[in-house]
């Protein structure tokens, strides 16, 4: 089944709608800050390994509606497994911004004390994890859901991945097993039209992964535009279903990768690039709320200012934090005191 935003009776209060916008603005503000520091010290002559934030950088600008819409339904103890493009989801799940920034900057104060990096964020406080290996978040979400089911809790696990990842074996194996064991899982596919340079049509045999879900006996829904309220509605139903013990479901959102696959990607393969900025979902949602009388200038300014303050605090904290001690590079391979 496919939904368009116009069909969605939002059921959201004005505060609820503003909260979605607020979260999206925070996600974007954070990524803009990372973008600045990532590139600022890599010129002249872009060198991926140089500078304050070295390594590959996959930013999620444009995909905020997925994170805001889904995470609005999640409690701290619900689990979320994300991908190599994790920041929007980490923030949506409520990750401490200082810990997130600390890890991205490779500092001792980061979530993994600088061991993991931006693709490998593990946060027991928010039950958040992610992986640089495509589709590998699906199976572990099953396990978290299994543990919740066994514990008799109402908690759910959400597994997010791209449409490219949905062509990998773990996706299919996970859908089947989740359906078979009625696990409280919500599969979320972020279809931004592109694997790195490979278009969805050239990689996926069906127009929508909702169809594939149905093939595994799971309800599947495709949200056809990048609208946070449509995502919110779809995720609300899926999470409620999982909490009620009725098993997994899948939501695919047709979203947008505003920037390159990773920073430094010239995107020569991307013919529609010129139109992409116009499809930015955040200004679109701002306008929609304004038009509905649900948002005024002052509120919007306050949201932006608050996001800037929080992000500035996190980034300053990261920059001021110590780098890890090279003599401790082998620390954390095993649990301290248990090496045999």
């Amino acid at each position, binding site marked *: 089944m496919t939904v368009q935003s116009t069909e969605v009776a939002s059921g959201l209060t004005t505060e609820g709608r503003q909260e979605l916008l607020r979260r999206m603005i925070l996600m974007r503000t954070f990524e803009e800050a990372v973008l600045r520091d990532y590139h600022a010290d890599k010129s002249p002559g872009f060198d991926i390994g140089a500078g304050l934030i*070295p*390594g590959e950088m996959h930013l999620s600008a444009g995909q905020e509606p997925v994170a805001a819409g889904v995470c609005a339904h999640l409690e701290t103890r619900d689990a979320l497994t994300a991908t190599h493009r994790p920041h929007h989801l980490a923030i949506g799940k409520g990750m401490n911004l200082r810990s997130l920034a600390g890890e991205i900057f*490779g500092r001792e104060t980061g979530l*993994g004390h*600088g061991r993991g*990096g931006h693709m*490998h964020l593990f946060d027991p406080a928010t039950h958040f994890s992610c992986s*640089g290996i495509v589709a590998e978040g699906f199976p572990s979400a099953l396990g978290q859901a299994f543990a919740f089911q066994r514990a008799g809790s109402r908690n759910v696990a959400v597994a997010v991945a791209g449409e490219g990842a949905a062509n990998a074996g773990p996706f299919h194996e996970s859908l089947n097993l989740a359906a078979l064991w009625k696990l409280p899982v919500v599969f979320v596919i972020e279809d931004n039209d592109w694997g790195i340079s490979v278009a969805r049509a050239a990689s996926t045999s069906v127009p929508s992964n909702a169809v594939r879900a149905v093939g595994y006996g799971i309800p599947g829904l495709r949200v056809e535009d990048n609208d946070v309220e449509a995502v919110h509605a779809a995720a609300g139903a899926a999470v409620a279903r999982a909490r009620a013990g009725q098993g997994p479901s899948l939501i695919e959102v047709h979203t947008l990768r505003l920037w390159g696959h990773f920073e430094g990607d010239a995107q020569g393969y991307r013919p529609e690039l010129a139109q992409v900025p116009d499809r930015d979902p955040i200004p679109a949602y701002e306008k929609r709320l304004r038009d509905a009388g649900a948002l005024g200038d002052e509120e919007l300014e306050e949201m932006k200012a608050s996001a800037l303050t929080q992000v500035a605090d996190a980034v300053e904290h990261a920059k001021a934090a110590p780098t890890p001690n*090279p003599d401790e*590079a082998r620390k954390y391979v095993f649990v301290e005191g248990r090496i045999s």
Partner: protein
Amino acid sequence: MSQATAAAAHRPLPREPEPGTRRLNTAKAIQEAIASQMAADPSVFVMGEDVGAYGGIFSSTTGLLERFGPERVLDTPISESAFIGLGIGAAVEGMRPVVELMFVDFFGVCMDQIYNHMAKIHYESGGHVRVPMVLMTAVGGGYSDGAQHSQTLWGTFAHLPGMKVVVPSNPYDAKGLMTAAIRSDDPVVYMFHKGVMGLAWMAKNQRSIGAVPEGDYVVPIGKARVAREGADVSIVTLSLSVHHSLDVAEKLAPEGISVEVLDLRSLVPLDRGAVIATAAKTGRVIVVDEDYRSFGLSGEIAATITEHDPSLLKSFSRVCVPDVPIPYARELEYAVLPTSARIEAAVRKAVAA
């Protein structure tokens, strides 16, 4: 030793071109080898993620789509088991696939196809079925890409029988070894280190650009190369570490420390004769390996020498990744990589002993 390898061992290597001739980076040298083999043999095709319009994330396939079209240069879904397995099946039917696994770190999702199928079919069939396939993949760290994108892992592939494992260190070898790999009737795992490709967006090793002949030539798989002659201590190594070792050798020469650098060029087959020869010459051996230390290449080199003649060695040491996932933060990553500083310290220790 097969007849072919024995013959190759006695054939002189093609002469490297004189300085001043055409220079390419390693990525272009690889592209050129693939292109010339595709032009020569219609059964050769290229397949993998982002190998088409993108030209390979590490530029191993740039220009091939434009020249040979989408029938012979195929972008795949992110379905490594399926497309690597497809390569195996096509090879069994006589095609010669060159399949890219984007980063070697991703082998976990498709290893069954690699080690239980690609590498075993020829043996299981009693030699009746051949799998003339090249699996090429990027290895190596040094740019903060974290624990899932920075490994070398060649020891893992070399440990499992049935596939040749080649790892060029420079453009000349990269072209000659790729040509040999595509022409090989055995499955070949061809690993290129990101740090020797000469990519615009990465810190470049000074030797990632070098002279490459225009015509076809083969660097035989299984023949090591003495990258620098020396008398006091031997560094046995491969890939990017060859360059760090050469830098150290150059630096120490004025102090009267003479370092020999042996570039293995392949792990399978391993040129054990060359390893023994350099050990016999200097008596002091250091293995520099960007793979994990335990249960890998460095232990194999030690075993090779001592099984041959334990009295050859006056000293032996290894500079490897100390059995820790590659950390993200630069300070930590460079503490575990086999850097020039670590190699230099090992050489000084060896000659002082």
